[in-house]
């Protein structure tokens, strides 16, 4: 019995990520996207994509030969690798037919707007709302010269508008000036959270649980989930808030003692996501209570959650804050 235990221990060794602030996700992970200015990519766009609507209608797929249909060479380059194959400078060698460009770019942006399953993309002015984005990456596949996803998981913010990214947005940060003073004052050393799933499909819940597991071990910073709202300093909402859970959520929030914080985790919780227009959800709770932290993701990666909560409570990963 002890020998078998020792074998398990030896096989696993040390599992925790020592420096959570240095953790890097693989390139393929779809984190914070970056947008490119449509005006700047216009010339290159003309050279590579003769008709935006054609390729949008055909899935931006330039190589598919099923049904005996061979797509034209001029179609959009493949974006599956997540790398830009279409930089403005490189393909600017046949800068003719300029009069068509505005039309083309406009139609392409409108195509992206129509394509997005949650309406996160706005064509004019070109922007992408991470509060509604489900990180499917479809826009980046169709138009890698306009949208690309990076592996940056730092997406937590306390400003809902900061989630609306535009060409040139290089990072998403938490605005320390907007953090209520009692949050850093009261929760700067330890924070106990209660999670309420209100229509969530289970994956964000599992990721929140995973942030406490042997690998991420968020508990090392005194941050933990409790079984009762009476023991908690704040609430984490996952899911779009189904109508059948609206009342229970409210009761649970009221049961948390003041001062308390509210975190909305996952795209569904921030905006309703796929369910924003569903007749079965009721998001009036969020009209009354202002969240302190928005965590985009589908689901939220444990590192997004960990970094978001650390920033919100003004904590540093390296030095232990001993001042009282």
């Amino acid at each position, binding site marked *: *019995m002890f020998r*078998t*235990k020792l*074998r*398990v221990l030896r*096989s*696993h060794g040390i*599992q925790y990520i020592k420096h959570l602030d240095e953790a890097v996700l*693989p390139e*393929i*992970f*779809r984190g914070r996207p970056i947008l490119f200015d449509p005006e700047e990519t216009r010339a290159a766009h003309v050279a590579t994509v003769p008709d935006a609507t054609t390729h949008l*209608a*055909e*899935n931006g797929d330039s190589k*598919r030969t099923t049904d005996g249909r061979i797509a034209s060479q001029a179609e959009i380059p493949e974006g599956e690798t997540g790398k830009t194959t279409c930089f403005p400078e490189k393909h600017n060698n046949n800068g003719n037919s300029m009069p068509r460009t505005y039309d083309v770019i406009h139609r392409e942006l409108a195509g992206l707007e*129509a394509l997005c*399953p*949650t309406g996160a993309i706005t064509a004019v002015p070109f922007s992408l709302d991470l509060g509604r984005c*489900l*990180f*499917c*990456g*479809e826009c980046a*596949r169709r138009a890698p010269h306009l949208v690309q996803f990076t592996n940056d998981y730092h997406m937590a913010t306390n400003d809902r508008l900061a989630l609306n990214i535009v060409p040139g947005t290089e990072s998403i940060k938490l605005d320390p000036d907007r953090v209520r003073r009692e949050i850093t004052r009261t929760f700067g050393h330890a924070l106990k959270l209660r999670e*309420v*799933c*209100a*229509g*969530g*499909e*289970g*994956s*964000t*819940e*599992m*990721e*929140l649980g*995973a942030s406490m*597991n*042997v690998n991420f071990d968020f508990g090392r910073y005194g941050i933990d*989930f409790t*079984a*009762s709202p009476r023991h908690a300093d704040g609430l984490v909402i996952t*899911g*779009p808030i*189904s*109508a*059948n*859970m609206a009342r*229970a959520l409210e009761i649970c929030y009221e049961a948390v003692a003041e001062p308390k914080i509210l975190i909305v985790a996952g795209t569904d919780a921030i905006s309703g996501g*796929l*369910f924003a*227009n*569903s*007749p*079965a*959800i009721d998001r009036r709770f969020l009209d009354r209570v202002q969240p302190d932290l928005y965590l985009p993701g589908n*689901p939220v*990666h444990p590192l997004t959650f960990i970094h978001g909560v650390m920033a919100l409570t003004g904590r540093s990963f390296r030095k232990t804050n001993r001042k009282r």
Partner: protein
Amino acid sequence: MQQFLTYTDRSCPIRLAELPHAEYTAFFETMQTYLASGLRCAHYFATPDHGGAYTIYAVLLDDETHSVRIGTATAVAAAPIPSLTAIYPAMHPFERAIAETTTIRYADLPWDKPLRLPYDRTDRSQNPFNYPFYSIEGEALHEVHVGPIHAGIIEPGSFRFICNGERVLHLEIALGFQHRGIEHLMTATDNRLRQAMLAEAIAGDSSVSHGRTFAATIDALAGVQTSPRLAIERTIALEMERVAMHLADTGALCGDIGYQLGQVACEALRTITINTTQRWCGNRFGKGLVRPGGSYFPITAATVESIRTQMSDVKRRYLEIVNNLHATPSVLARFEDCGHLEMIQAEAIGAVGPAARASGLLRDLRSTHPFEAYADLAHEPVTETTGDVMARLNIRCREVPQSIDHIMTLLERVTETKPSEKPVFTQALAPASLAIGLTEGWRGEICHVAITDSDGRLAVYRIKDPSLHNWLGLALAVRGEGISDFPICNKSFNLSYCGHDL
């Protein structure tokens, strides 16, 4: 008696005109005959016709002949009709859903209570706070209510126990808190990508299984013949999901009895597994991996290598954990002889998936109704006989290595086939047709039914998660157990709330 249509090639749609149709009386008789002969109901729902009448669709599975039987009937709302649940309790979630959302009334529906309190329920006076829980009078008895919010980071559901001392006499489970109107949203949009993502959101821990079921249903309606390579890739994705969730369940069961070594070791192995999925497709839950018509993430040599090394390591380390688990008497003392679901009960409630297999029922679509690459895998379902928590755990302990072996076999074959095609979101669907997607997810049998209108738009999309059958199994399993054993009984089933509530 009416004959149902036998449907064998699920990659082709059925024209609605070809479906056998009868009055409810003849249909009721046929259903009884089929259910008595051992066929089981995979889906059963009603859609409104013109003039207050409804069409009832029944999808039955025949495990012997590996086929599907489909029949339809007209039910008029005017007079109450006899219910099948009165004879076959396995039909209860289906008929309760019909009673809840239509004006059809059953004359003798036992347990005629709300199922998921959908937004379009006919009786708006029903709400989550006035659910008519069963109660027993008696001075020795007390009631314990748990939920809708539970102690852990899990989904909401309401449990009411009637206990005699510490012993549970009865458990009633009231769900519906997770209802998001997903079936309505599926037909409210023409954006195929949005539909595919909704399918992945049916249950986040089964994104690949539900995503694959949607993709297969749409591929059938669109007449898309997918390549063998795509079938292999989808099968690997399904098995990776199974391994990850079985690891999570093993860990959670160990955690619930305070066996920390098993818990943390399984957590670590699950992290390795889902990170391998992430390296393949960019998402730890495999969201975006399965799409209709093709895949954006064709398996590459690097992916093959990463899956092969990581999964063989996971298998070796998991077997060590299982070895230790079976050698630890304090673990066995909690799991063995606890939360029995007898075979006869499992059969009666129509249990599916690992819960049914733990009770000795051979319910595994991978062998009875093979899909994707399973036909070539010669999958041998794992079964146990005792039907207790230990049996449900043992199913997982044995399925993880089996699934990893399947993955290894499939990885061998990947390189022999041509690269898979790209997804298609614009294919026209066959008009006025019906298609069925069947998948054995890690939790059990998933069934999606799609019906198109005369313009080829999705008119009806009905989803069945395996949890719909199995929740009653949990309620039966805790009878006679100490209430403190409820968490491990619950974890051993690990059913989906959102998959049930939709």
